[in-house]
């Protein structure tokens, strides 16, 4: 079991699994703490994190944001990140939770 594998899995409330690059996931402070802290929590062993309170739709958008951020981190000319107003509130809560 490689502790530095390239991909991590994020699981939503409904059981949907999103496999993303480790580097992208580390955009979230919470996930970063989980995976890189000194302890070996269950999560870091399996490289999988479950979020029973975040729905699939929101998690999908969050993952999209991770990629967006990694892609445009060091540029000045950045395209807009589209957020549908209906999910804005839940997205805000999730972002607050995840520190991203």
């Amino acid at each position: 079991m490689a502790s530095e594998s390239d991909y991590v899995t994020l699981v939503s409330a409904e059981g949907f699994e999103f496999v993303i690059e480790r580097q992208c996931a580390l955009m979230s402070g919470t996930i970063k703490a989980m995976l890189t802290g000194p302890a070996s929590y269950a999560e870091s062993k399996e490289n999988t994190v479950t979020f029973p309170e975040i729905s699939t739709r929101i998690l999908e958008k969050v993952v999209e944001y991770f990629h967006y951020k990694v892609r445009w981190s060091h540029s000045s000319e950045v395209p807009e990140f589209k957020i549908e107003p209906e999910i804005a509130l839940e997205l805000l809560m999730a972002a607050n939770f995840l520190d991203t």
Partner: protein
Amino acid sequence: MSQGPRKGAFVIHAFKSAPPKDSDMPHKHWGKLRDAIMQIFNENAGELSFEELYRTGYNMVLHKFGDFLYSNVENLLTERSKELCEVVAKTPDEMLLQEVKKTWHDHKRSLTMVRDILMYMDRTYVKQNQKRPVFEMGLNVFCQNCTRSPRVKDRIKNLLLQLIQQERDGEKVDRNLIRCTTQMLLDMGKVVYAEDFERPFVESSQHYYMVEAQRLIQASSTPEYLRRAEQRLNEEADRVTACLSTEWGSGSGIRSTVEAELVGKQMEALLVKEGSGIVHLLEEDKLEDLRRMFELFSRVSGGPQLIEDALADRVSQQGREVVESAENQTDPVGYVKKLIGIKDQYDYIIRHAFRDDKAFTNRLHKSFEVFVNLNARSPEYISLAMDAHLRGQRKAAAGAAAASDEQQVEVQLEKALQMFRFLQ
């Protein structure tokens, strides 16, 4: 969404499933967190789900139970520190420092994990209420209840000082242990470190070196003492950088204290020592020792001044001997030669032992001015000597002597001219 897609209109749905306000909820949540933290303390964190614990903390803060959570955490950490203190206090002295080091290390680790779980609280509740973040609070609690507890605090200090003294006396000690312990004290706060360790350390160092200096000054000659002192200073500087968390030149005063004890207080005694003091060193051309003396004395204020005074005294004495001796009155060239000889000797010493210090050179010239003018016939002698040199030069030119001969005469003329400058 339910309404039709009218341009610009949208519906924000109410949050699905607002959790029922459960008055027992905070206690249940806290129970879960408490159990988890206890597991962490027992090094058993592998089974835990970070996400669940983080979410629990998050929910508590979200529902305005941040206060409750914070104070409970604080209490739990205090209890834990007290437990740890019990264990540490019971260990015997030889094992104490090791035990403290291990306990501290483990505690820091657990604390980091606890902090990670409670990061949401740190970010929101702590910031909003200006409390200390969890990690810092944990360190503080540990410090108060364990390291500073009456049974442990003094023992740590005494053991540390004892180890340092042993090393000074030449024994081999575990430097790593010293370093870890001082690092721990430093982690708990600069104030803690300064009070609990630095100050007693400087005091004990002063005492140690005072005794050492007195012992050495009785037992050894000046050059020997200087060598030992230099060695001690280097040793101490090395020790401080390698295993203490103090800077050698820092405001704690360790450097100035040691220098004052070893050098400052003994300067006068060193200069006038029978048979090995400054006069002896100058006469015997002991450049190496003179240089060392200069370097060491320079570290203390007023040091070089003392050397300068002693030098001036000696030069004046020598010069006066030449100027007032009867036989020199009949031999002007010899008279001037001797004076030049003295000047050369001291120029050489100043350049090689005293780093060509301008103050020393000036002092030398002043002394020369004084004794050259003591003899009213000095000007006469000097001109006679120059005359003799010039005549020698002409002879050399006429006799096709080697160029170096001529140069030599030039140099002699130059030096005699220097003597002229001292006349008034």
